[in-house]
């Protein structure tokens, strides 16, 4: 669970037409962002709804670094005001649609960064970003042998030789 702390008025710039939120990353960086931008995150939206009950302003502590948080904010800023089917809670789960062109460029980062972004997106409940990251990771292992997949994902083969050669593991069908 995130920790919600009260902050002074001086910490947050004055309110304009769009409300401002203060996000605090795990490396204690304070990032001020318009509420509109982060409305794609269901987690943030729920937090904001909670704030409305009180008159105090709040900061939201998030369990990932400012570097990752900035990437997520960049994504949300790019799609600010856009309707994305994946973020619609009433829409059916997305099928085999390809990664959007902008997302491909945005997610052209190393494996570890990609994993951090997907985790952050999952935490913030941004379904469209989770989907794009999952597709990007799936694309990394497409057409590869199992051994190559392990190398790309940085995992070891932890099956026993018996398990690996047993009919049930091969099946798979």
């Amino acid at each position, binding site marked *: 669970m995130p920790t919600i702390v009260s902050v002074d008025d001086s910490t947050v710039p004055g309110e304009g037409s769009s409300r401002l939120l203060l996000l605090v990353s795990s490396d204690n960086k304070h990032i001020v962002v318009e509420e509109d931008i982060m409305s794609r995150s269901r987690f943030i939206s729920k937090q904001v709804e909670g704030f409305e009950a009180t008159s105090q302003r709040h900061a939201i502590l998030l369990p990932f670094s400012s570097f990752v948080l900035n990437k997520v904010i960049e994504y949300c800023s790019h799609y600010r005001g856009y309707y994305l089917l994946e973020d619609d809670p009433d829409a059916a789960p997305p099928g085999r649609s390809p990664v959007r062109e902008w997302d491909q460029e945005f997610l052209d980062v190393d494996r570890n960064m990609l994993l951090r972004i997907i985790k952050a997106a999952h935490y913030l409940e941004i379904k469209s970003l989770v989907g794009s990251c999952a597709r990007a990771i*799936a694309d990394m292992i*497409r057409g590869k042998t*199992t051994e190559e*997949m392990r190398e790309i994902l*940085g995992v*070891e083969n*932890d*099956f*026993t030789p018996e398990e690996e050669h047993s009919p049930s593991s091969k099946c798979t*069908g």
Partner: protein
Amino acid sequence: ERARLDARLHELRNEIQSVQLQRNAIAPISFLPNELLFRIILYHAYSVDIFSASWVKAMLVCRRWYEVARSHAQLWSYVSDSVRRQSPSHVWEMLKRSGDYPLTCTFSPMDEEVYVLEMILKKHMHRVRSLKINGDAKLFSPLLKEGDRWPILEHLALDSWGSENTHLSPSLFEHGAPRLRSLELNNIGMSGWHYLSNLTNLSLVRGHDGTTPHPSFDVLLATLQRSPSLRRLKLHGYLPSDEEGLMALDRLSTQPFPIDLPLLEHLDVVAAFEAIDALLRCVILPPTASMYLIARGIFEGWGVTSLLVPIHRHLHQSGSPVLLSLSINSYPDSYTSITADSTPTTESDLFPNDYRPHFRLVVHPTKQSACRSVFTKVLNALPLDNAEHANLTLVWGHGLSTTTWRKVFRHLPRLKVVRIGVNEGMVAVLEGITDAVKHGTQGLWGAQRRRAARGLFAWPTHLSLVASNDGGTGVPDPVAQTHYYDSLVRLLSEYRDMDAPLKPAGVCWPTLEIDSIRHGYVMGHDYRHALFPLVQDLIIYGKSWDPVSERKRMRESRRKMRELRKEFGIPQPEDEGSSSEGSDSAEDPAQI
């Protein structure tokens, strides 16, 4: 001793496995929750074909991936006979692992394989969400019996290879397919339409010579009436074409309350033009719906007249996309098509996979005069005032004459870019443009004259040649290409020397672009010196070309070569000095 060593081996293996498990536990990907791992595996399966067994390689990455894949029923709910052909037991295992998850099935059953489909329909019908069968309807239609229940069926697609008259059971949906939204029947008849409602996709395709019975027009209209959320409607050969049927259809189309289809995205109809006319009178389409019509029976210009009103009404209604490009296809003695789209350029492919232009009409005029009449009428009916790009790359042979092209270009006032192959069609198009410029606004009437008065009359200024597109499928014929390029030079010279009211003599063609060197064919490049003085800007393979810059580049390249030879002690060739002064005879086109 052996027993001791075996025990030691066993112990070491266990230790290795334990270390591997620990190692995997701290791998970055292991920090992702199972839900995310499942999403990754699911997208991987989609990307490699979820119906085949090839995605399961990902299960064997490590134990955790295996467990995640095993425990998510959705991954096992895509059932196809391609899996079964690899191992018969797989399909049963998949059904077991899929638990109660809704099934998506796709089958192409052969004689001896129908039993799997039969078993699925018998035991799992209650959870079939999507069923697609492609095969001989004699084999699979008996399996779709009366009284079947399809509680969660959303998509049904049946495609029959057999040419025999196949008809599904009249009461196939009698006991309900309450969630059926998408129905696609290819060469298969069906009755019991009154059981269907709220469809979002309806696709009915019948071959030319098929005897497949189709629903009567009123039944079809009633189905549309019950499907106000319809998004895609495809009717190929399903509207009546005999005289009696057409008369009945005409009677029905005069009904006072047309059917509103506010969500329709794509209408795709292949039928007699009278039938299309009747259908378009019966339905109200939203302005954004794309329209793809193949109108049979239009051999003369008058035939298209009845379609102009609904086409005009649809494309001119408020909210329709602005048309920015068009393409014209013509195949001698076969068909002529006009496509218009809101994208800056238009694909010319007649049967594209995913590309859906906003408007396409295909007709089959038999004579040039009929072609001209069709073009005049249709181009006037389309809102093409903003269209600037024409794709004519599928125009070749002697399909359309110079006079016809002149008509076309006089009806397209704002067109700037014409893209075409190097073939007979190019010659006719250029002759047509030259002719249109020569005649200027003479003989224009009505809307054309009003456009001319508003100063909108203009002709294409940018000719883009797809150098390898000669209308054939292999390497372009050099003899024919020489003829076409000679004609190009002749026509551009004529254009330059022409003295017309809107084009004084001596003004060259503005821009000529040559691109696309398939098969390494570079004849356009060979003609660059002849073409250069005839155009204001010659673009070859994306770059502006002129002989001065080329000579400069060549001199620079030779200088570098001399320096390299000197550096490596290679003797200089004797003729180097004479050719270095800019002679083009030794030029290598590949260096340009």
